[in-house]
């Protein structure tokens, strides 16, 4: 299903941690339903206003019955500052759902997230649970974790690592993960973390999916601004991804 463009109304835009917000909007049911791992181009400012480009943000959670769609994001620059300024009743432009999304596989799976990279993993956990999988969530944060209650409500097991030792294991999320315990591992986070997770999995012959991040202009596979090198040549993060088998990059 190809991406659509619509204007939606913001229901809530709530702070979760320092510079981390959860934006929930009323989903436009005339647009294709999104699935875990897909993303939208978000724009809360005029076409003639800065920043020039819309911002790609992954789907955090989708509830077709409540018609709620939510995005967990980190305030990093002008675009996300404008998103953060949105309040209930404000309007937001969405273009999507874009990208391929996570394949739903495995009976016992691990989700390994780092920081804001945990964002797409909540919807993934929900879809995996619906498919009957046992879902273990491993997340690393710099200092202050967020959205743990939401993950705990869905996942069978939640384990946390922090760089500062504030919560959970004092160290890296990769210290907690033993890929051999799982059929499939899904990961999203900083590149260095995803590479470590992917290499750990591939070394043990465990299937691993990574969700890549890239700067994008169109989000639709039209501009080729987000191309990255893979074993199969250049791939568009927005169209061929953002989810790839780890072996495509780290095999």
């Amino acid at each position, binding site marked *: 299903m190809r991406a*659509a*463009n619509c204007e939606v109304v913001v229901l809530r835009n709530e702070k979760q941690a320092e510079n981390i917000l959860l934006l929930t909007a009323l989903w436009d049911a005339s647009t294709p339903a999104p699935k875990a791992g897909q993303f939208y181009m978000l724009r809360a400012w005029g076409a003639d206003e800065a920043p020039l480009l819309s911002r790609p943000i992954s789907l955090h959670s989708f509830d077709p019955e409540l018609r709620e769609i939510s995005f967990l994001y980190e305030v990093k620059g002008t675009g996300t500052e404008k998103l953060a300024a949105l309040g209930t009743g404000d309007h937001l432009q969405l*273009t999507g759902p874009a990208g391929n999304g996570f394949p739903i596989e495995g009976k016992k799976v691990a989700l390994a997230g780092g920081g804001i990279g945990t964002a797409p993993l909540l919807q993934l956990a929900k879809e995996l649970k619906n498919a009957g999988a046992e879902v273990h969530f491993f997340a690393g944060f710099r200092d202050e974790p967020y959205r743990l209650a939401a993950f705990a409500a869905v996942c069978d097991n939640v384990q946390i690592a922090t760089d500062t030792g504030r919560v959970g294991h004092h160290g890296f999320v990769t210290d907690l993960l033993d890929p051999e315990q799982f059929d499939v591992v899904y990961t999203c986070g900083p590149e260095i973390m995803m590479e470590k997770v992917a290499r750990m999995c591939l070394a043990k012959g465990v299937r691993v999916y990574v969700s890549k991040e890239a700067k994008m202009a169109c989000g639709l596979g*039209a501009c080729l601004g987000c191309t990255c090198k893979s074993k199969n040549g250049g791939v568009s993060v927005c169209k061929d991804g953002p989810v790839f088998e780890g072996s495509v990059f780290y095999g």
Partner: protein
Amino acid sequence: MADLRVNLCGKTLQSPVIAASGTFGFGVEYENIVDLKKLGAVSGKGLTLEGKYGNEGERLWETPSGLINSIGLQNPGVQHFIDNELPQMLQLGCASMANLGGSTIETYEEGARLLDKTDIDFIELNISCPNVKAGGIAYGVKAESAREVVSRVRKCTSKPMIVKLSPNAENIVEMALACEEAGADGLSLVNTFQAMAIDLEKRRPVFHNVFAGLSGPAIRPIALRMVYQVCGAVKVPVVGLGGIATARDALEFIMAGATAVQVGTANFMDPKACEKIADGIAGWMDAHGVKTLDEIRGAARV
């Protein structure tokens, strides 16, 4: 009701709004977003005879009202396009334009010969991509180099051939005249302006190739000036582009003398930009009692 149809190189377009190369994929990417029947044409992603990965490193950089890109003509190659993307492009509901770049004159010629055998409506000859060392800009700066490549490609195709000019040309009017004399059926201008950005933390240029191409509203007044100059010098139709983001912008180019316009970077500012611009032009015409664009084309020329 306003009649938006325009005649471009002997073909009737249903609207003067053309999606610019490199910003609209091959059109299908937008089919669920834009009513493509409101467009005159889609110019596909720039092609080269052999497929290319494009440039390394950073490819996109936002500037005030602008975007610097360094894609580097990433594309699947002409034959792959003909076999895989073209069939869908011919079903878009508007005319189709194949944007053809090259490294040597021979690769331009071979690409044009392959495209000539297809049902594509137009060939847009790209002699203006600033992002590959030998991918067009080499021919887009000096009028005599352009004359040679245009005249050689002219012999390879009977398709309507529009030559896309670079604002980095030494003299845009001499460049336009050289291309017209060499057999161009039309001209489109301007491609991106050579630009750069510097990463303060790394103390290095942002782009692997150092320079890259600036587009978007930031360049529009300069693009308009060049389109005005070229329209005053050539007889072939001119497609104006460079930062057009609204119907008002498009009408300025048409009043400067352009037959049609292309919309590029604005597609990233609003994915429905092309459709809104077409609707906006019709709305303006209705409000001003203008029935066809012929009535206002070149109206601002002094």
